[in-house]
């Protein structure tokens, strides 16, 4: 197992360097650079000023040299400096990371738990009205554009009913501390986390339902019935565990994207997370911030892929052996 993990980490490092390099060239292939954007905003777009900015940012060096500098920085865990924000990129990301993780992780748990539960329920009552209702509701959340659900949630629960705050991470000027602050953040979290979670819940629900139904027709389920086992035990021990394999795959894929953030949700709810950081950096051609966000999210995808594969080995003895 340790050998397997070491090998995978080694492979992951190579993949990560490849991703960083590819991103580097892709970003530089886009028209415009941070100097041009900053000069444009300052209303001083003359060549000398631009040249100065480029020298200051190191943009005047040959592209390969820039890449070499960036990669050697990465190896020392230095993600570079954002001239736009006048802050090290790592600090910028570090500041935003908790908010994003809080939002995406909550949504992830909501979608995984509710989705799997709903899928199990629907499969146990396949063809009955409860199955139809669960499937329809799930489909409704999946088919409706995320930002529309977000806006409607804000309109209903914040504007009309005034139950929950509709934007931000905590109450501006609230100056809460301790438990009161936690409660404040939790209240702000409800709407964005539910919006995001319900969207993905539909995917888990449909996959769990289909997988449970497929497994329930397998021979070993018949063997279990022939033993005289109770339906509940058969459902739990034989069908559910086998049906979870594809769900674990999906969860791994989704978990990898937790850090990438939810650009739409964060934008609608003014959630100060990485998604918004990336969106702003894109508009401002803030190369180092963009590359930094890409780097961190790529690293997370790889880490969660590894976790998924380890989980697979725990769940399925056949994979452990191969």
């Amino acid at each position, binding site marked *: 197992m340790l*050998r*397997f993990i070491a*090998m995978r980490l*080694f*492979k992951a490092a190579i993949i990560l360097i490849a991703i960083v390099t590819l991103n580097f060239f892709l970003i530089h292939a886009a028209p415009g650079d941070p100097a041009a954007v900053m000069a444009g905003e300052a209303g001083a777009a003359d060549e000398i000023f631009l040249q100065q900015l480029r020298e200051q940012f190191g943009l005047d060096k040959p592209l390969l040299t820039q890449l070499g500098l960036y990669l050697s920085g990465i190896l020392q865990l230095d993600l570079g400096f954002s001239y736009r924000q006048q802050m090290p990129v790592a600090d910028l990301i570090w500041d935003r990371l908790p908010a994003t993780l809080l939002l995406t992780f909550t949504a992830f748990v909501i979608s995984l738990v509710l989705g799997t539960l709903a899928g199990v329920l629907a499969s146990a009552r396949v063809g009955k009205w409860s199955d139809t209702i669960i499937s329809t509701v799930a489909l409704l959340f999946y088919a409706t554009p995320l930002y529309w659900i977000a806006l409607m949630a804000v309109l209903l629960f914040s504007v009309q009913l005034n139950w929950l705050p509709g934007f931000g991470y905590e109450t501006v000027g609230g100056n809460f501390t301790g438990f009161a602050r936690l409660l404040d953040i939790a209240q702000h979290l409800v709407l964005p986390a539910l919006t995001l979670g319900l969207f993905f819940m539909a995917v888990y629900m449909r996959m769990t339902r289909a997988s449970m139904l497929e497994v329930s027709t*397998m*021979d*070993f389920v*018949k*063997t*279990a*019935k*022939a*033993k*005289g*086992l*109770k*339906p509940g*035990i058969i459902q739990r*021990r*034989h069908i559910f*565990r*086998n049906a979870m394999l594809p769900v674990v795959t999906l969860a791994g894929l989704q978990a990898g994207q937790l850090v990438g953030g939810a650009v739409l949700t964060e934008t609608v709810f003014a959630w100060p997370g990485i998604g918004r950081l990336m969106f702003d950096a894109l508009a401002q051609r803030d190369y180092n911030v963009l590359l930094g966000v890409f780097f961190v999210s790529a690293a997370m995808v790889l880490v969660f892929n590894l976790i998924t594969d380890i989980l697979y080995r725990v*769940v*399925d*003895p*056949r994979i452990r*052996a*191969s």
Partner: protein
Amino acid sequence: MTFQDKASPILTIENLQVALPEGADRPFAVDDVSLTLRAGEILCIVGESGSGKSMSANAMMGLLPDLVVPSGGKIMFDGMDLLTLSNAERMEVRGKRIAMIFQEPMSALNPLMRVEDQIAEVFEAHGLLTPKERKARAVELLTEVGIPDPAKAATAYPFQLSGGQRQRVVIAMALALEPDVLIADEPTTALDVTTQAQILELIADLQKSHGMAVMFITHDFGVVAEIADRVAVMQFGKIVEQGTADDVLKNPTHDYTRKLLAAIPKLDPNAVFEPIKSKTILEVIALTKTYRSGGGLFGGPERVVHAVQDVNFRLGVGETLGVVGESGSGKSSVGRCLVRLQDPDSGSVLFAGDDMAKLSGENLRAARKSVQMIFQDPFSSLNPRTKVGKIISEGPIAHGVKPSVAYEKARELLELVGLDKSAFDRFPHEFSGGQRQRIGIARALALEPKVIIADEAVSALDVSIQAQVLDLLAELKERLNLSLVFITHDLRVAAKICDRIAVMQKGRVVELGPTQDVFNAPKSDYTRALIEAIPGRAQELEAAS
């Protein structure tokens, strides 16, 4: 046999009727079936696919598919009618009073649970023993069914066991609570012939030592001859004949039984095959193929399987060479190397002056035309979304024949293999297994090959259909002067149609000779073991002498 006299009925099926959903090819899966099971007796239910034999068994266990329901009759067991039990009563009977073993040992066990846990579940389901005692009993049961190293097998996962071992685990689970009745639904069909012989012996032994009543479902009269006390023959959901094994096998009274018995390829020790002295059309020299998995740049230890090792044989014009062996013996790999579906690692396949093993590109394409393959599974080897006519004419068109000419030829071929011309515009799913295999043959013939490789071409077919397809192959071979490499695990089939036989074991040819020599005077121990394991052979030889 005098079991009827000494044993009283333990389970009686009275006029059982099981309805199929609307739109099925007949209204009842099981129609007016009456049977009696007695303690200490093995009752074989024999029939071809769709005869209703499995449905009868599933009705007893309450394991019928959702849309299939019992619509009449009774199944009386210990004063209860099994058809009218509540769910709780049914769970009480299942596993404890009536146990069942299934056809497919590969899929009958939960892949994610250890063997001991799966056996322990039987006790758990009926609230017996402590968890620790359950595991101890599991090892005892595994010992009783003859698994090597039972303690280790108990903690294994199913995928770590062979097919025969898994079937022993399933049998151990069925025996756990000493049931009165054991239902075995084709328990040896998926197994190799030597493993099958062992499992049949095990079931017969256990039946005697536990005094159970066994209902044994099979399509194979050889198996019936080995273990049955009494036999019931089913066709289209009805029992057409039942009686003692001796009576039914030796003096069948119903036409269908006679037809089934006649369709079994006979092992005739006196049959003489004229040696084929024609010139060689295909010669295989030192063919070798090794599979490697794992390993690679970052992987762990490499797994190496020597599938084909130094295989040599020649095939004469008009000859049928049988390649027989058990699963994993490398017989299919040889076939695939011959048509270059797989590239051999080394060795030569000489055909018409070319080495097929070394050809590439256009030359390989041209040579492939002359060596065609018929596959095992008539269901998955035909593209379900392509019309039959297209399937057959695809090959010739790819080789430059004008479509109109190829279509005309396809229609002729359909008639040649005994189908109607109208089959041209239909899809594969509209045909039965035997008809599809005829389509597969027509497809192979479309390229006017000189050599045909038939890989288990009749293994998936019922015995009566099997006989028809074998006759068709023999007739076509004669008419078109084809040479045939016939790959099979079924020695009866090989004995019927092959001129010479090559016996393969672990990638090597251990014996090669004229069919009657291989059967009557086998030189290798392995060949002898294979022949002795053929179900029903002893009884057949006894009857013949």
